[in-house]
Structures are given as structure tokens and as C-alpha cells.
């Protein structure tokens, strides 16, 4: 009888203890106790999970690495292909910009016919300012034809082969070009130099020349067509005892980075050498 009657009391006592524990837990009174109890359990679980993960990685890893390596190789190949495409497109864009500018120049001077040419080299000697272009007599080029870019005058064709030509730049020390200054409309002589700087000479003393004045071809002498821009005056030297003024010039063409040029093919240079006075024979 006692044993039967004690069971409900045990159950009731256990239930009350359990309910009490629940209320204590809900009230937060068991938190320190749960921390002390759970900490080693969590540590043990973390250790087991870490080891399991390591074993799992070891077992499944090689297959993933091989797959990743394949994917990596494929992606690298695709990346290289795309980079090549980008470089090609950038080159095409650069060429397009140059050609577009050259076209603008050609539209500005519709009276001339042009042949476009790429610069393929420079003279092997540092003393001479010449460039090689990839057009020659097969393309209608002849000696003496003027060469320009969208910015202005470059030089003129000096030697021609069937498929290439040599262009003498206006910076070459043996070059002289008849020019006109704007706005004064004064005539002057442009000459190149060994240092690739170009200067102006033979400017009359009574002409007012100032930095910033434009320099264009005058057409005198018949070697170059008129009104092609060459550059801008940066400094003037005028001394009372000199017959002429001289000036330094900043060319509009970047001669160090020439890529594409235009050859004016319908300009016929005039050879004035027979008109030069010959020294008298004694």
C-alpha cells in the first residue's frame, strides 16, 4: 500500500522539481550552471566536428582540386583570350581615332588626294630625322610628295621603293621650309636641327612677332603646299644689330610618336634649282 501510494508522490515531486527547474531556467538563474555544464560539451563537439571536417576534406579533396584546376585552367584561357580581344580592340580604337582625325584633316583640305601610310621604322643613324613608311611607288608615291598628319606638316618623301618610302621630317638638320606667320603674315624660313628642335629665321626686323603666333607653310619655293599648320612660336629673339629676327617653335606634330601619316599624292613639287643663279665662270 505504501509502495503504491509513494509512486504518485514521487511523480508529483519530480514534476514539481522539473517545473521548478524550467522556471529557474526561464528566469535565468541556471545560466552559470548551464555554462559550466555546456562548455566542455561544446569544446568536445567542436573538436569532433573539426576532425570530421578534416577527414571529410581529405577524402573528398583531391577530386575537388582536380576539378578546380580544370576550371581554373579553362577560366585562365578564357581570360587570356578576352585580354587579347581587349588589346586588339584598344589598338583598333586607337587606329580608329587616328584615322578619324586624319579623315577630318582630309575633309578640311578636300583639294588634295591622300594615301594613308603606317610608320614602320626610323633611320638607323641618330643624326638623321627620317621615318620609313609602308607605302611606295606601287601606291603612287613619288619623291618630293608632302607628308602630313591630322595635326600638321610632317615632312616630305625623300626616297621611294616599290613598297616603302623614306620620309624626311621637317626636324632634319638639312631641311628648310618657307613659312608664313599668322596673324602678321610675315614670311620666314624654318630650319631643322641636329637636336630635333626647329626654329625660324629670316623674320624681318619691322615685323611684330609674338609667342603664340601660328606658323603655316607659305607655299613659296614650291616644295610644300600652302597653309598647312606647322606649330606655334614659343619665343622670339630680336637684337638691334641683327638683320633678321629669329624665333623658336613648338611643332604641333609629335615626331617621337608618329604612327600613321598621310601622303599628299596630287601635289606636284616644283624644282626651283634651275632658277638659282649659278656662280659666274671666269
Amino acid at each position, binding site marked *: 500500500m505504501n509502495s503504491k501510494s509513494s509512486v504518485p508522490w514521487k511523480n508529483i515531486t519530480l514534476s514539481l522539481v522539473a517545473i521548478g527547474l524550467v522556471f529557474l531556467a526561464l528566469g535565468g538563474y541556471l545560466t552559470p550552471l548551464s555554462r559550466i555544464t555546456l562548455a566542455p560539451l561544446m569544446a568536445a563537439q567542436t573538436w569532433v566536428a573539426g576532425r570530421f571536417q578534416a577527414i571529410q576534406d581529405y577524402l573528398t579533396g583531391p577530386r575537388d582540386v582536380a576539378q578546380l584546376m580544370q576550371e581554373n585552367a579553362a577560366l585562365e584561357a578564357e581570360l587570356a583570350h578576352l585580354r587579347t580581344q581587349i588589346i586588339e580592340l584598344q589598338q583598333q580604337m586607337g587606329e580608329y581615332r587616328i584615322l578619324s582625325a586624319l579623315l577630318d584633316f582630309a575633309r578640311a583640305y578636300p583639294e588634295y588626294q591622300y594615301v594613308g601610310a603606317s610608320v614602320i*621604322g626610323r633611320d*638607323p643613324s*641618330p643624326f638623321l630625322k627620317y621615318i620609313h613608311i609602308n607605302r611606295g611607288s606601287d601606291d603612287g608615291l613619288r619623291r618630293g610628295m608632302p607628308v602630313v598628319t591630322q595635326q600638321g606638316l610632317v615632312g616630305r618623301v625623300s*626616297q621611294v621603293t616599290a613598297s616603302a618610302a623614306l620620309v*624626311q621630317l621637317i626636324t632634319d638638320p638639312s631641311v628648310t621650309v618657307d613659312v608664313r606667320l599668322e596673324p602678321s603674315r610675315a614670311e620666314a624660313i624654318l630650319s631643322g636641327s*641636329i*637636336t630635333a628642335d626647329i626654329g625660324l629665321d629670316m623674320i624681318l626686323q619691322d615685323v611684330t612677332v609674338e609667342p603664340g603666333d601660328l606658323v603655316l607653310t607659305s607655299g613659296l619655293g614650291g616644295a610644300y603646299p600652302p597653309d598647312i599648320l606647322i606649330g606655334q612660336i614659343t619665343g622670339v629673339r630680336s637684337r638691334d644689330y641683327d638683320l633678321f629676327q629669329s624665333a623658336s617653335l613648338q611643332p604641333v606634330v609629335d615626331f617621337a610618336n608618329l604612327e600613321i601619316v598621310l601622303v599628299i599624292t596630287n601635289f606636284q613639287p616644283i624644282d626651283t634649282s634651275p632658277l638659282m643663279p649659278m656662280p659666274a665662270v671666269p
Partner: protein
Amino acid sequence: MLPILAPLPVLTLLVILQSTIVSSLPLLQGYADIVLLVIVAWALQERVQSAWQWSILGGLIVGFVSAMNIMIPLVSYVSITALALAIRRRIWQIPILAMFVVTLAGTLLSHFLTAFTISISGADLPWLDTLQLITLPSLFLNLLLATPVYAVVRDFANWLHPEEIEL
């Protein structure tokens, strides 16, 4: 057969490199002359017998490509080869020293000939500017490249003219 045919493609390639790459990499206004360096290095090789052919061919190709008178590179390279051969017989024990000496003399001779020709053709040639802006930078670059060029040419000469071993 190969030693006879070798100079034409090698020198043509060198002139193309000179015209396209080397001349686009100036120091001030001067740049290196790799054709001159190779001709000098070739002439200084002990077993090489074709130094004259290389210098004449080199001079002709450069003269053909350049706007300058063909006689300038021709005379320059032949004179430099003569100097290199003379030095080779005397101080052959220190070939790299000979390379420097001939490079120095060759660059100065080549530049003097070119500048003199330009000068007598009527162009204005300030000699001090020429020396400072063209000759000295070119000389510096040539001396800088003398050692690597000599090493490459020596290997090429050894490959083309292997040493005969007596059994």
C-alpha cells in the same frame, strides 16, 4: 655552308631591330648601334675568318636602309673591323677589354664621319650640342650593351665555328 650564309639574315634582322626598336629608345638624342656592336664582337672572335664580309655586308645593308650616304656606314664598319682585327692580334687575351676599346673608337669614328658629312652638305651642326646630345649618349648605350652583345656573339661564333678537338 652555314658560316657563309649566316651574315645576310643575321645582319638584316639586326638592321630591322635597329630601325624599329633601338631607334625608338633614345637617350637624349642618341641611340645604340647594335649593328656596329655585333660587327665589332664578331671581328674579335678568335676562330672567325669572315669579319670583313660581315662589315662590308653590314655597311651595305645599313646604307641601303638609311638616308645617309652609303659610304659612311661602309667606311665606318670596315675601319672598325680593321681596328678590331689589329687589336685582336695584340690583346686577344682580354677580349672584353678589346670590345670596349673598339666600341669606343668605332662609335666616335662613325659619329665623326656622319657629322662631318652632314656638316659639309651645308646643314648647321653645333658640335658641342652634337657631342652632348648624340655622341656621348650613344657611346654610353653602346658601352652598356657591349658586354651582353659580346657574350651572345661569342656563343653564336662557337656554335658556327666549333672548336676542333684532336683525338
